[in-house]
């Protein structure tokens, strides 16, 4: 995109007009989506896609931008969900949006704590630290009934549902707009951060951490900021996953598989890009559906259904491997956007 040295801000007027038109069209489609899609699509595909995108975005700030490898995405989502549950249960006066923010802050603080080892270790060793978060919180939230208010199934659900300020967001449309609003807002914040000094510090650490320290980047602070911001977003994504998508959740909703899923999303979508999280989330939520549809139409009745399910998983895995070999920089690169050759993202800093 930038091989030809275009002057920074000198776009022709009509291209700006086209861009504005495109943005306006996109907003119109997003707002109208619930009326275009069936309830099934909203509940089962679009809402989870948006939430997974948000989670991917959160992890991408930490892993793709700041270069800190984490397998704790599920843990921080879990903290956000359980914190929201606790706040809604025990501080009923706190409206839902504020509860979500406070839950995000709690998740952020937890993320910051588990990020402290990153100032000493990196790569594989950092994975161990974030994995510790994963296992610790799975244990914690099961072990103490206080966290799920002692109910017999050890699950959490909001007794008052998704109502706030007299609005009822429990229906599919309400859940969609609530999720969309939060995702849009947090995407905007992330975008602001990464194009500012914070983002430059993160990328400097990712690209060359010794040099970053020597030229005056506050490496320690910037790494902890990355953990905190990433976990803040993941925490809110977790709360949405639990209450706007699933309705009721348990620790199994945020197990290690979830952490892997979020990591796959950003690897497939593109490390170190905002849009990568969306592409990756679309890939992991739509591909299984497409495979499902294909198999039902081609093989249904001929092959055992359980076997089909397993074959689908195998194909999904193979497709990911094939895709990563073909395009290690993810969908964001494949779709012809951003970054020239020779600057590929590495998952493991050398």
């Amino acid at each position: 995109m930038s091989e030809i040295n275009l002057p920074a801000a000198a776009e022709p007027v009509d291209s700006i007009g086209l861009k504005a038109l495109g943005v306006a069209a996109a907003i119109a489609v997003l707002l109208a989506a619930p009326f275009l899609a069936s309830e099934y699509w909203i509940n089962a595909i679009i809402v989870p896609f948006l939430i997974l995108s948000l989670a991917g975005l959160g992890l991408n700030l930490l892993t793709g931008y700041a270069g800190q490898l984490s397998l704790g995405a599920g843990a921080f989502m879990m903290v956000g969900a359980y914190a929201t549950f606790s706040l809604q249960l025990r501080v009923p006066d706190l409206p839902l949006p504020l509860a979500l923010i406070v839950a995000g802050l709690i998740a952020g603080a937890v993320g910051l704590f588990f990020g402290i080892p990153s100032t000493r270790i990196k790569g594989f060793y950092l994975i161990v630290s974030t994995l510790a978060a994963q296992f610790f919180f799975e244990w914690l939230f099961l072990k103490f009934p206080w966290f799920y208010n002692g109910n017999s199934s050890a699950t959490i659900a909001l007794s008052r549902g998704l109502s706030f300020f007299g609005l009822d967001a429990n229906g599919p449309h309400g859940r969609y707009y609530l999720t969309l609003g939060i995702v849009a807002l947090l995407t905007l914040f992330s975008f602001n951060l990464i194009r500012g000094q914070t983002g430059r510090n993160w990328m400097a650490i990712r690209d060359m951490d010794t040099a970053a320290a020597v030229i005056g980047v506050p490496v320690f602070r910037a790494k902890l900021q990355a953990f905190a911001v990433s976990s803040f977003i993941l925490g809110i994504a977790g709360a949405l996953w639990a209450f706007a998508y699933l309705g009721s959740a348990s620790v199994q909703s945020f197990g290690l598989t979830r952490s892997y899923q979020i990591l796959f999303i950003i690897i497939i979508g593109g490390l170190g890009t905002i849009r990568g999280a969306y592409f990756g989330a679309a890939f992991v939520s739509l591909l299984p559906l497409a495979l499902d549809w294909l198999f039902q139409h081609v093989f249904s009745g001929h092959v055992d259904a359980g076997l089909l399910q397993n074959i689908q998983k195998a194909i999904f895995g193979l497709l990911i491997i094939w895709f990563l070999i073909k395009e290690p920089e993810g969908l964001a690169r494949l779709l012809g956007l951003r970054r020239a050759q020779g600057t590929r993202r590495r998952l493991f800093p050398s």
Partner: protein
Amino acid sequence: MATSAGPALEVRNVSLSFKGVKAISELSFQVERREICALIGPNGAGKSSLLNILNGVYIPDSGEIVFEGEHFRRMQALEAARRGIGRGFQNNALFSGMSVLDNVIAGLSRKSRVTLFEEAFRLPRALSQENAFRARALDVLKLFDLEKHAETVVGTLPYGVQKKVEIARAIVAKPRLLLLDEPLAGMNANEKQEIAAVIARLNRELDLTIVLIEHDIGIVLKLAHHVVVLDYGRKLADGPPETIRDNPDVIAAYLGAQHAEAAA
């Protein structure tokens, strides 16, 4: 300036070893304010290691550093930057995934005064700082004739251009002491002259004290006010370029007969 008297930098009896192998032994020298001091010596003489001690990448075994009158047993990397020690690396240590402009602005990081919150909401203070940083970085890019590359991803540029970006990044925060590790390496004769001229200008116009490592003796003798010769981690000679050129030890150990003739 903190104090106007005394040298800018003093290295006192500094020793460094890697797993028992001595890299630097009992090295002492001074760098006066506003001078260009060149460190020369064969590969493995300990030149780069010394720079790494000066801005806190390596911890010396013994000895101390006196920078602007303050004594340090060891430097911390961030502390060194905060006190105004800028650094260019031997093999470019640029942030390869970022644009030229962002690389240079990253050098202003320690001057940043806005909070994460202000940046997330793009509050006025964040915006005005961002604009000020951009303007400052563009000014520095102009000095190196790099404006046209401002938005290019730095990893895609040729080596010589990257070297310039690195010096730009090192000086953007207005350091008082600039450490350059082979700033001319890998450049052609024209580029070398160009960069040498910029270094001389930075020294003259910004009153910048510069310590540089360079192998091109012809340029070193013209550019530097003061030359320190290292060999096997020891100081072999220390003085103005004219005396270094004629020092028989230096000729024997480093310059070699041909170089001496060429320089004479």
